[in-house]
């Protein structure tokens, strides 16, 4: 397997302002020296407490927020020093599925326009090919083509989440950062989407950084699992092992807090 992504000592700090003059009084070290590699066609699951830096790490890797320090190498290209034009080119290969679908979809764009946008930006295919692609992508996320001309507010939370997934898949990228991509989906639709992700991964070799607080989902989709705590990766192991033999106390706490349907059977 070839290494697709290499993250070296990545850092992202945010200033904390205080006092009347709103001076910078400290920094939040949201991502504080994270390193890992990801091979094509593989999934790294990322778990950790709310606020530990998972979304920030995802955004910093994709340069949606410029890192404070460290390096991100995608297919041999170092991203943190790239200028805007080269970065736009690289964006074809890396997409994100946002945690809050409502905030990430433009209210004035129809579903078709939203999913088409990356194809338009990168000038891929003819107009009719793009339309065909949109239809295909909707199918893939379990939605009917009739919804194409509708606006985000006309959809339920889970439907919006699927629109975000279809959009991320449009360019057939090499890397997808999926930030809680299935949190708003019921278990059956979620299973469909997860199976789909596995299929795309097999067929196109897409690599995923899969952020989720749902440990059963992470276990199911991931080859490796990384556990983040206060901006750092505190444990990283093959998915099977981490569940069988969690080392870090925080990982152990996470695993013991999973709610279970068997409670109802008590």
């Amino acid at each position: 397997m070839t290494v697709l992504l290499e993250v070296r000592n990545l850092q992202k700090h945010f200033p904390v302002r205080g006092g009347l003059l709103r001076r910078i009084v400290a920094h939040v070290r949201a991502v504080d020296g994270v390193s890992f590699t990801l091979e094509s066609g593989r999934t790294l699951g990322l778990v950790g407490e709310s606020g530990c830096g998972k979304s920030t790490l995802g955004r910093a890797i994709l340069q949606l927020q410029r890192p404070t320090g460290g390096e991100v190498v995608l297919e041999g290209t170092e991203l943190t020093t790239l200028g805007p034009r080269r970065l736009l080119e690289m964006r074809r290969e890396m997409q994100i599925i946002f945690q809050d679908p409502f905030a990430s979809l433009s209210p004035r764009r129809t579903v078709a326009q939203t999913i088409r946008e990356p194809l338009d930006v990168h000038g891929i295919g003819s107009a009719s090919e793009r339309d065909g692609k949109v239809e295909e992508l909707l199918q893939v996320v379990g939605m009917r083509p009739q919804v194409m001309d509708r606006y985000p507010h006309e959809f339920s939370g889970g439907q919006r989440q699927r629109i975000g997934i279809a959009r991320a898949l449009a360019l057939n990228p090499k890397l997808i950062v999926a930030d809680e991509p299935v949190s708003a989906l019921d278990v059956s639709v979620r299973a469909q989407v997860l199976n789909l992700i596995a299929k795309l991964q097999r067929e196109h070799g897409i690599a995923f950084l899969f952020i989720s607080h749902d440990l059963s989902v992470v276990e199911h989709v991931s080859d490796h699992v990384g556990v983040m705590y206060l901006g750092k990766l505190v444990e990283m192991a093959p998915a099977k092992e981490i569940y069988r033999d969690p080392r870090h106390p925080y990982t152990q706490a996470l695993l013991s807090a999973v709610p279970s349907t068997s409670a109802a059977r008590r």
Partner: protein
Amino acid sequence: MSGEPLLSVRDLVVEFSTERGVVRAVDRVSFDVHPNETVGLVGESGCGKTVTGLSILGLIPSPPGRIAAGSIRFQGRELVGLPESEFRRIRGQDIAMIFQEPMTALNPVFTVGNQMIDVLRRYRGLTRRQARGAAIELLAKVGIPAPEARIDEYPHQLSGGMRQRVVIAMALSCDPKLIVADEPTTALDVTTQAQVLEQMVILQREFHMAMILVTHDLGVVAETCHRAIVMYCGRIAEKAEIGPLFEHPRHPYTVGLLESIPRVGEHEKEDLAVIPGMVPDLLHLPPGCRFADRCRRRQPRCDEALPELDGREDDRSRVACYFPAEPPT
């Protein structure tokens, strides 16, 4: 359950007019919620859970939406048709909603503190200083670290899970009698989720609060709810007490739902069980059972007419299916 219900929804119908026609998002839904009770609301994405919740708070955007029929009684008082000014009072003090997407409930240009202090002053009549103290206390209760510093941050400076907890804290701040919590913990890791749910249960006991908990997480339903309502395509498919529902689901959709849950500790990178097919388009509904296309138990009768819930409202278990799985006797 005995005694008067706190909330009583009967034959609720909610429609949206769209360019392509009228969409009936909720179709003759009935249920009761009693004081102190937590009722889970689960079902396929797009089946009408959020719309049901919004109806209770008079928040259906109109146009394009409207409550086309039915009644919603809260403490005996009819809410359908109530003027907005009355609803505003109810929303502050009696019924609160925790929204599915936290950014829809937060104003990006004000700090968390300003938004909370506003609510606390308005509904609890506190001074600014008292309200600030109360807000910090609430943030601590939902597990926000360093609440005295976080209170002065703007929503975009918080992580997804922190925003969700701020919204929960705001909903709890006016001691409502009923909380409609729409996916309140989806953005939270399991340890934080456990903490927040526990806090909600404590407050619920303390204030005799009732809760409608909309969630996809059947584990959360099993651990926190007394009863659950399973919806499919705008209709109630099944409702039952938690134990029987998980042990002997009766509606084929509920059966499929329970089979689709991935479980921790069974690592298999192979396909998960799914319910094959898709929900029907709300604009082109079949005359018979809406689940028929995907159902293993389907028979000719299922396609003739829509199955209604059997039994009566105060029965412990009701199902809308001609050939449900029968619990062992």
